[in-house]
Structure formats: structure tokens, C-alpha cells
């Protein structure tokens, strides 16, 4: 998949990736920032508009393709992974991005989500996780916290939230990263990393729905608490966080624990390795979360692996090398007889 323009050498600006469609998200919605960073990254990488396709399901987040001046497909609820898979099978040359929400990807679309990751189709997935159903006006989603009061759960949700990262890693994700709508630089970095990955790259973006779930991520955005609650993952570096970089994560009896750096031997700290062959450590990170732990942000996992459409296409090549199909021969088959 080539993402460099084939047809032009003119340098494109972020605004060149915008359509004439008026953006119809609520004022203040976190989606705006994600759209902006995406356009920036497109420009920075000079993505070929003609060869780029944004595929989405249904939800506020899934309106995304209308706002990108590339090819786009706003499909049906939960099915974007299937459309993206078919598109890549037919057209491995395209640069395919998928946009989905926590309901679209993990509720109705959970199975396709799991299987596209398992197959490692070469697409980039942006999962807008606002922990709510936005478009249908505020019911809890699979990522909503237990006990959450919503339109459909006036007495609180009885369900245990799911961690997209855990599911993805269990399905064999070759790339998983996490960022948040308002942290524009970090988001931009993560999007670039996803663009560079070959295979399914899942980016979970914490996104604020200021109408139906406002403040879901205050602990990660609030000036005061932000740095105490965020663990920025850096390849090869020990896991340290806190405003004063005074806390770290170490393993104790196979479970992570927060330790005070003053009293800890730095060598005991976990070292982040996104290339770790075994997904277990990344899985361990996926279980860490507020309030017991800081939320890991950045690239959890990025490993190389065969890509589905390559393997499929290789079979065509191999078969064709033994001789391109002859239609007449096929229709004729082995056993025939003549009638005079």
C-alpha cells in the first residue's frame, strides 16, 4: 500500500483534506479535534487523496468520512470492518482507514472487530471511545462504567465494561495505541505511528461527548490531575509518571503496582517494549486504569506480522504461476463425451 501521491507532487495542506460538507457534530464535541489532527497527519504524510478511503459504521463518530476529501464509505452499524476487509482484498493498493465508535466497534460490531484484527488486514482503525452511545442520545455502551446512569439505565448499568485494548490484544493485534482528543500533539504522533504500521493498526481515542457523557475523561484532561493519572509509554524507557516524574510501575507477584521512585530501585521498574513478541505485557497494560493506576497512553504494541491480503493474493500468484486459468478448459472439465 503506497500512501505517497502517485498522481501529483504538489504539497497538500490539512485544509486540502476538508470537504465542502458542513461538520455536524455538536459544538464542543471531541470529534472536531480528532478530525483536525487526522487532516494534519494526512498533509504531513502527503497522503494521496485518490488512494485513501475512510470507511465507517454508524454513530456520531462514523460521520467522519463525510468530512475527509478522500474516498469514503459511511456504511451500516458495526459492519465497517467487513467492508474494509473486502475493499482491501479487492484493492490492496489502497490506503484504508476505518472510523468507529465504542458502540459501533464493541457492541454490534464486536465480532467483525475481533476478526479483522485477527486477520491483520492492513487497515488503520480509529476507535472513538466516548463511553456512550452518542447518536442515539445517550445510552450506556460496552465501555461505560458499571453503575452508570443513562436513559436506558436509570438505576445504573449492571454491566461490566470491556477494554478494547484487551480484546484487540487477545485477538492478536499487531498494533494498538491509545490517545485522547484534547492532547493534540500526542494524538498526532499516534496517528502517524498507525499510518506507518503495516497490518491492522488500532488507535483507541478517548473522546469527550460533551452532551451525553461530559467529563468522562476529566481525570486525564484536568490540569491538576492529568499528569498523576497518565502514564506516557516510551519505547525502551522505564514506566515513570507523575507531575514530578516521581512514580513508577513495577511488577509484584505478577501484578503491576505503583511505586514511589524515592523508595524504589529504578531497575525494578517495568521497561516498556512495544515490540515484545508475547502480547502478555501489553495485555497487562490494558488492564491498568483509573483510579487504581495511571492510564497508559501511547503505543502499547507494534510488531511486524504477515498481512492478510498479502497471504490471500500470494495464493493467486502461486496458482497463476502454474498457469493462468483457461476458461474454455475449465468449462470443458475432465470427463466429456461427443455426440455425433
Amino acid at each position, binding site marked *: 500500500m503506497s500512501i505517497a501521491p502517485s*498522481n*501529483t507532487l504538489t504539497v497538500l495542506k490539512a485544509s486540502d483534506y476538508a*470537504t465542502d*460538507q458542513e461538520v455536524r457534530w455538536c459544538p464542543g464535541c471531541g470529534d472536531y479535534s480528532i478530525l483536525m489532527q487526522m487532516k494534519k497527519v494526512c498533509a504531513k504524510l502527503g497522503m494521496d*487523496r*485518490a*488512494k485513501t*478511503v*475512510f*470507511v465507517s459504521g*454508524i454513530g456520531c463518530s462514523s460521520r467522519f*468520512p*463525510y468530512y*475527509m*476529501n*478522500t*474516498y*469514503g*464509505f*459511511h*456504511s*451500516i452499524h458495526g*459492519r465497517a*470492518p*467487513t*467492508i*474494509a*476487509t*473486502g*475493499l*482491501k*482484498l*479487492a*484493492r490492496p*493498493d*489502497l490506503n484504508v482507514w476505518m472510523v468507529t465508535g465504542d458502540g459501533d466497534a464493541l457492541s454490534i460490531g464486536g*465480532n*467483525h472487530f475481533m*476478526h479483522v484484527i485477527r486477520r491483520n488486514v492492513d487497515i488503520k482503525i480509529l476507535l472513538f471511545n466516548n463511553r456512550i452511545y452518542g447518536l442515539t442520545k445517550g445510552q450506556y455502551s460496552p465501555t461505560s462504567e458499571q453503575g452508570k446512569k443513562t436513559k436506558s439505565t436509570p438505576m445504573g448499568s449492571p454491566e461490566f465494561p470491556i477494554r478494547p485494548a484487551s480484546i484487540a490484544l487477545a485477538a492478536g493485534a499487531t498494533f494498538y495505541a491509545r490517545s485522547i482528543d484534547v492532547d493534540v500533539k500526542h494524538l498526532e504522533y499516534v496517528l502517524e505511528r498507525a499510518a506507518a504500521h503495516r497490518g491492522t493498526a488500532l488507535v483507541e481515542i478517548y473522546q469527550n461527548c460533551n452532551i451525553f457523557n461530559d467529563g468522562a475523561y476529566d481525570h486525564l484532561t484536568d490540569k491538576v490531575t492529568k499528569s498523576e493519572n497518565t502514564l506516557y509509554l516510551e519505547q525502551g524507557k522505564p514506566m515513570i509518571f507523575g507531575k514530578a516524574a516521581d512514580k513508577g510501575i513495577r511488577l509484584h507477584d505478577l501484578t503491576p503496582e505503583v511505586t514511589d521512585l524515592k523508595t524504589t530501585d529504578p531497575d525494578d521498574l517495568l521497561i516498556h517494549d512495544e515490540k515484545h513478541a508475547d502480547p502478555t505485557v501489553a495485555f497487562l497494560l490494558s488492564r491498568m486504569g483509573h483510579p487504581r493506576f495511571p492510564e497508559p497512553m501511547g503505543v502499547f504494541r507494534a510488531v511486524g506480522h504477515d498481512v492478510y491480503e498479502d497471504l*490471500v493474493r500470494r*495464493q*493467486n500468484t*502461486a*496458482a*497463476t504461476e502454474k*498457469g*493462468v*486459468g483457461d*476458461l*474454455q478448459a*475449465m*468449462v*470443458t*472439465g475432465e*470427463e*466429456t*463425451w*461427443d*455426440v*455425433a
Partner: protein
Amino acid sequence: MSTITEEPTTPPGARHKPVHTLPSATIRFAGDSGDGMQLAGTQFTDTSAIVGNDISTFPDFPAEIRAPAGTLAGVSGFQVQFSSTDIFTPGDDVDALVAMNPAALKTNIKSVKKGGIVIVNDDSFAPVDLKKAGYERNPLEDGTLNGFRLIKVPINKLTSAAAKDTGLGVKDIDRCKNMFALGLSCWLYGRPLGPTLDHINAKFGVRKPVVAQANILALKAGFNYGETTELFVEQYQVPKAKLPAGKYRKITGNEATAMGMIAAANLAGKELVYCSYPITPASDILHYLASQKNFGVVTFQAEDEIAAIGAAIGASFGGALGCTGTSGPGMALKAEAVGLAVMTELPLVLIDVQRGGPSTGLPTKTEQADLLQAIHGRNGECPVAVIAAASPSDCFHAAIEAFTLATQYMTPVMLLTDGYLANGSEPWLIPDVSKLPRIQIDHPTAPNDAKGFMPYKRNEKLVRPWSIPGTPGLEHRIGGLEKQDVTGGVSYDPINHEHMVRTRAAKIANITPVGEDMLWTGPQSGDVLVVGWGGTWGAIKAATLDLQHEGVSVSACHIRYMNPLPRGLGNALKQFKHVLVPELNLGQLRTLIRNRYLVDAKGLNKVKGLPFTIHEIIDGVRAIMAGKVTDLEVVVGAANGG
């Protein structure tokens, strides 16, 4: 490939016993799932085809993979009619039944003609075998079979005797029983053993010479047994049929469907992307296509039917020929996504190999009860084109037509076949592919409007352009929300919505067939018109011809284009006193006809998981002529579920 001389093949055993010549005969091989009856039947069929008969087969196997040996549930059957005239069905009643065990006898004896031949494997009628089949007493002795020509053959013993010197294990030798039965049947109907010998050698010759030898010995033993013993007083022969000259092959509906798809891709200069989730009886289409990767065919075994159609839509959006195939329950799951394809106006072919329903129903049996689902089974006004294949080989052409319509009209097209067509086979005059019409496809490369590219700007047939990603300057976005015509932008405008709903309807309503939309048997006016569709074509045609020979004023009009219905149909219906619609459902085509043309069409409905027999159709026509409409009307009543 063997060529046939003009003079009819004289059966080698003919010198000893009188040979009766029959216009056609029907034989059924029945036994345990493990007895290899499908193979015996297939070989008998191939041989008959090769000696120049017209043939039609009906394999019938259980829903279980391998039900317990000897039980009724485990019985697997294969029926073939071979004929010196051209035939259209595997035959109503059986002239000769080969029953390898009591269960096979019990489940199949009803289909044998009075006075018909019943060959049983005597060695498998021990009390325990009888019990498994639920026989209180031994049917070979208690007179159950009076009126049949019962021939008891100790097939186990004779087979092992024949192959004992090969040194093959007992179990393996036992596996040759079916070859003994086949050999005997070949003798009975004067079929040469050559083709089967070739087959055995091709299959085992090199790898397992001993197995090959054992099978050959059993086959010949069976043949000689017929010739030498006094059990058979006479022998039969069925002269070759006067088929149009040319090179023939045997073909099943699923093979034809798969080949038609590859041909279509080839004729369109496109890649075929077939996305499917396994389901009986459609799986073989996936299997066949998966083995044709050197045609650039991409097959995708999806996680479910919804993923399959989603991927097919994605492939079509990318510019390939996207197709998804399944059976009834799977088609039900695809309903929502079909709507997406209708709204986005992308080419898409959906294949429904119909089986017995509702729900899981009768997975291995045939039925025609998905027609109304194909036409109405989605939310909103959501029209698609629907084509139905009439015979196994017709599936080849129907598949090509489906892709032609899908790409020419930018629409989903449903192709309906059924379990009977899918697994049944017939001789096929192999087409010269160079004579098949190309499928013309143009993807726009430049904006189609001064204001830029308009994805929903339509041609005179109301068809939008198929512009594909990768084309600079034509970037656009589509989706499931209502589209503004021309621009393709999202639109909630009431006027536009009505315009689009009617435009989508008109686009389908005005489709011009790219193949025969109806197949006529007989004149276009008369007393009775038999209107059918799909896999019942053979039975209806045969019945109609028989009645016509008797001088009955009856014609048959078989519909291949279910939506839109054939242009001339409305008028044609009015040229007959009675309209009879035989269907393997409760009257689905009939509701379409009655609604559309206000013609009081009557139903002849059968929902047994089995195809029509010729006589059932004949009786139906007689009944309607005799004014026995009320009886049928009961059926009609039920048909409407209200």
C-alpha cells in the same frame, strides 16, 4: 473422453439372455452413508452419459454427517434416469432399486414401480440390521415385497470372495461392495465397465494399486454375477438419445453457478471476489471457487453471512465483482446490508441456494420458499433484481446474467437456485466461451459535470457511474443515509426522498433482460397455462409435453426473471382459460402474479423438501381443467397465510 460410434453399444452379456430395449429407465442406489452409494450412482451416471443417454440425477443425503450405521437417518440415496429421448427430471418412479441394507429398503421401497426390480444385499438382513431399521419381521420373507421382482444377492460374501487374493484388509475389501452393486447394475442395463475402470485406475491406480485391484475385481464380479447366475432372466438396454451434436459434459447446479461467476469475471475483465460463510447446500460454490485461484478469483470465508456481504460490498466499491452466496437462513441475515447496497447503488450479486425452511428447517432438502424474502425481505422500499435458474446447466448462464445486470444497472441482483439444482446433474453441451458476449464496464476517469464529479448523476437508464477509489479527482463519499440525487450528498429533503425512492424502483422496474426472461413450452394461448420458476422447470416441461401429446391444450411459461417480471407476462396470462402455478412453497410466485395482473392464478403447492414428480404436475393440470379449483383454493388460502 470417449467417442461413440453410430451403432448402439451391445451389452457384452447379451449373447446369453434376452435383451429388452427401453426408451428410458430409472435406477436408485441406496445404502448407508458409508456404503459409497453416491459414488456408485455417479459412476453409473457418467457411464450412461458416455454411452449417449440423456441423464438426470437426484442425490439425496441425510443432514447428519454420518448417522449411526444401519439406521433410517443414515440412508443415503442416488437416483438417475437415463434415456434415449431427452428428459428433464431424474424420473418419478424407480425401475430398479439397489438396497444395501434394511434401512435403505424401508426408506426407498415406496418409490419403486409395481413390478419393479429390487436388488438387496442379503448379507445385511440379520435380525440386528432389521432392528436398526425398525423392522419387526424380515421384509424379504414376510411378503412385504410381493409385487416386486426381488433379487437377493449376498453382496458381502461375493465381494470378499472376489477380492480375497488381493491381500487387502477385510474392512477395505468391504468398502468395495458398492463396486459389486455397480457392476451388477451395469450388466442389468448393458452399460460398459470401461469408464468406471478408468475412474478406478485414475483414483487409486498409482497410489494404491491394491485398492484399485480390489475395486476392479468387485466390479467385474458384479457384472459377471448378473451374466452367469439364473437370478436374472432378462437384460435391458436403453439406446442413446438423439441429443444435439457436440461435446458434452455432466454438470451440477453448484458447479455451473461457480463456473458462470468465473466466466462473468472473465467476460468483464474483472476480478471476482466471492465472500461466503459455509452453509448447506451452498458451500460447494465456495469450495469450487477456492480451487480456481489461477483465474484471479479471490475467495473469502467470512466470520458470518453479514461479514460476507459486507466484504462483497467493499469489493464492489473497490471495483471488483463482489458476490456473496448462501442459503435461506444466511440470506435472512444479509437483509440489512442488501439495503446498504441498494442505497449506495453498487453492483452486487447474491446467490441463494434455497433449502427447506423456515429457520434451520431441512438443511439438505430442496424448496422454493425464499422468493418473497428475495423481493420483500428488507426494511423500506428496497428493490433489487431477482433471477432464478431453471436447470443445473442454466445456473451457468443465470450467473453471467446476474453479473451483467448488476454492473450495467449498479444494483444488487439476487440469483435463486435450490438444493435440487445445486446437487442434481444433467448433460451439458459445452459452450464455446469465445462466443459468450463480453460484459462492458466503464469506470469514469474524469468529472462528469461542470461542478465536479457527481456520483449520483444518472444515465438514461437511471444508472449512476461506477467510479472507484484510486481515480484522482473523483473523490466522493457514499453511505446508507438517503442520498441527494446527482450530488450523492446526504439529504433529508422530503421531495428528494420521494424522488429517490421512485427512481430506485423505476431503475429496477425498467431493467431489460440480458437473457430469456421466460421459457415457453407450447403455444402462447390455450386452455391451461402452467406458470413456474426455478428448479421445477424440468418436471413442468416434461408434464406439459406429455399432456400435449395426449392432445391437451396446455402450455408452460417458465419465468427466469422474477423481478422485474417479464414484460409480456401480463398479456400472455390472459390468453388462457386457467393459470396454474406449481411451486415448492405455499404460493409465492402466485401472490406476485395475482397482485400484479389481477389474474386468478391457482396454486399447485408441494412443501415436502422434494422436487415435483411429472405426474403431480399432470394431475394438477387435470384437476384444474376438471374445475377442481376449490381444492386447490384451500391451498391458495393457506398460501397467503390469511
